[in-house]
């Protein structure tokens, strides 16, 4: 055991001499995770809206209908309209205070009803691209709507716009009824063409009955275990790479001529990896759990499990890299393993947002499996028995991979 400690002490000192590598192994996943979170809507800030200035020079019933359409349900979430006169509107647009200015000319409604040509002017802010485009699209849709409404309900609308006959202030009940019936009949006639067979889309989130999503856990939480495991994958790759650096320095061969030998050297390396990872994971887990308000009483178990995952992945990387014929080959081989595992195993994209079939495959990758257990520990989802079984499997797999690595190291890798 003292020999193992000698080897571990050496590796801990060496790893600490290269803090940049440690920071990179764990910093890159944090960066990737943070970016992914932002891309996928983790940002809780207000949505950007199209600021549309409207110069309504017609100020009629028809023009008000057009302006009101920008504030309807749905469109109202996207558009923020503000009435201005044309001169003010142009000045403010020049100052970059809005996305677009819509100018509704005088006699707009009248021209529409009389089927005379009229022109709506949309002036866009050249400094913006998406927002003015949205205003243009919306106006185009509304223009089509106005055209079809006029074609179908032109006489009725014309009567409404003209106002009550004989100088009255209000329409008589009979007139209102007549217009309503007439409009209703037109719509009914068209209904069979306009309304196709009803297709109603129902969506339901299928939850695994044994693992209900805990209330109050934000979506961003699902990135935490993935980021941790991604960091462990990178770290494992780095630790695996270290054995090649030792070989190239000739120290492995020299160590084989000492009583230390390959197995104690390997055990020392794993002990050093465990110590380094435990220290870093402690900080990362504490920060993550505190951020998501998870009870810190689960921290020790999560720490032990995460360190175990780190050892499993390191043993895997050691075994893989030692079968390569050169250092460069080992690097390529390890990347070929790390990136697919990262993509599939829920580290880059949480299983929750992956297609179900892909998530099912990903759960069988070593990191995917380990990640699920970590999530279960953090959310206190499973009872003790599944955890005991998982720990047993973790120990067995790690031991198996270490055996492969040790045999390779002692019989060939360290002697060349």
């Amino acid at each position, binding site marked *: 055991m003292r020999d193992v400690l000698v080897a571990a002490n*050496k590796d801990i000192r060496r790893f600490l001499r290269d803090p940049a590598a440690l920071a990179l192994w764990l910093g890159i996943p944090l960066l990737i995770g943070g970016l992914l979170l932002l891309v996928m809507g983790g940002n809780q800030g207000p949505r950007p809206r199209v600021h549309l200035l409207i110069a309504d020079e017609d100020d009629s019933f028809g023009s008000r209908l057009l302006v009101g359409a920008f504030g309807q349900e749905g469109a109202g979430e996207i558009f923020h309209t503000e009435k201005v006169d044309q001169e003010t509107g142009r000045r403010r647009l020049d100052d970059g205070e809005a996305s677009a200015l819509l100018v509704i000319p005088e006699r707009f409604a009248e021209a529409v009803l009389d089927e005379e040509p009229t022109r709506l002017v949309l002036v866009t802010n050249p400094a913006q691209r998406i927002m003015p485009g949205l205003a243009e699209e919306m106006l185009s849709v509304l223009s089509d709507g106005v055209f079809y409404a006029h074609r179908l309900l032109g006489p009725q609308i014309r009567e409404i716009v003209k106002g009550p006959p004989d100088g009255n202030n209000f329409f008589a009940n009979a007139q209102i009824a007549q217009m309503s019936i007439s409009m209703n009949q037109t719509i009914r006639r068209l209904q069979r063409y306009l309304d196709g067979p009803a297709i109603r889309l129902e969506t339901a989130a299928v939850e695994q009955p044994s693992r209900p999503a805990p209330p109050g856990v934000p979506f961003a939480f699902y990135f935490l275990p993935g980021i941790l495991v991604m960091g462990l994958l990178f770290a494992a790759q780095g630790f695996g790479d270290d054995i090649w650096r030792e070989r190239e320095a*000739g120290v492995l*061969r020299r160590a084989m001529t*000492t009583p230390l030998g390959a197995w104690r050297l390997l055990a020392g390396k794993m002990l050093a990896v465990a110590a380094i990872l435990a220290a870093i994971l402690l900080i990362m887990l504490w920060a993550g759990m505190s951020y998501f308000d998870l009870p810190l009483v689960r921290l020790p178990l999560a720490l032990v499990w995460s360190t175990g995952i780190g050892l499993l992945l390191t043993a895997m990387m050691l075994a893989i890299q030692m079968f390569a014929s050169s250092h460069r080959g080992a690097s390529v081989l390890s990347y070929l393993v790390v990136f697919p595992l990262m993509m599939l195993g829920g580290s880059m994209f949480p299983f929750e947002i992956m297609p179900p079939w892909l998530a099912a495959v990903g759960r069988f990758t070593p990191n995917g499996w380990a990640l699920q257990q970590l999530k279960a520990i953090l959310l206190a989802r499973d009872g003790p028995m599944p955890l005991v079984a998982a720990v047993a499997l973790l120990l067995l797999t790690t031991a198996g991979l270490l055996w492969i690595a040790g045999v390779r190291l002692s019989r060939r890798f360290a002697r060349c």
Partner: protein
Amino acid sequence: MIEVEGLQKKFGTLIAVDNVEFTAQRGKIFGLLGPNGAGKTTTINCISGLLKPTAGRIRVLQQDIELNGQAVKRQLGVVPQELALYEDLSATENLRFWGGAYGLRGSELKSRVREVLSQMELLDRAQERVKRFSGGMKRRLNLGCGIIHRPKVLLLDEPTAGVDPQSRVRLLELVREEVDRGTCVLYTTHYMEEAEDLCDELAIIDHGRIIARGTLSDLRAMVGQSDVLVLSGKFDTDGLREALARIEGAELAGVEPDELRLVLQGATSKLPELFAAVAATGAEIREATLTQPSLESLFIKLTGKKLRE
């Protein structure tokens, strides 16, 4: 001591070491002299347990290396040809690690680290990372890591390769200090001068086989009073053999189109006759070098080529 009997090591069809036999004594330096690729390092690797011999027996301190590997390794110090050091650690940390690997602990380790640092003249750079050391300093530390546990048997594989003359002198002094302590040293080199200067007993190895063995005086006796004449120029190899066969005491050791090597008895008296004979074959002589009897001349006599070819 080291006893090697009938050692053979094959790599596939290549026989790297073939029937090597020698004995290295306590308090003496046994040198393995030979060109690069002769089998010196393979022999050392077999003795240190790094390689498993194909055939033969190796005993170190009366113990079979294959049967008692761990026990032997505790008494064995190995200084490999490459600088097998952790360059990201300091000299002290390197010595502590290798001392620990050989089983030293606590105060014993601490005092030995200090002693070795002093012996290697590295005390003032003890805490500095090895990657900042000069080549000579690294070589000294490389040696220090091999002797930190005071081994009874020390295997030195070309420990002076690539170092400046001053560092070489210091390294050789350090090796002598170890021998004076009673350590049995096996020393491989392709520097003839080093072997002549340092070794009590020598074996000359080429193509995996020992071609001569004995003390320095034994080996010199094998050369006799022969001088070696090396001629450079253009030579007709067929005509030369015939012409030289007529000169008594001149032995053709090796001949190539641009170089001729001859072993001569009574060199000075034979030179005019020899030059005339060579010139008569139509050869062009551009340079002639006459060397006194040495290991180099023995090597040429035995193999027909120079040691560093």
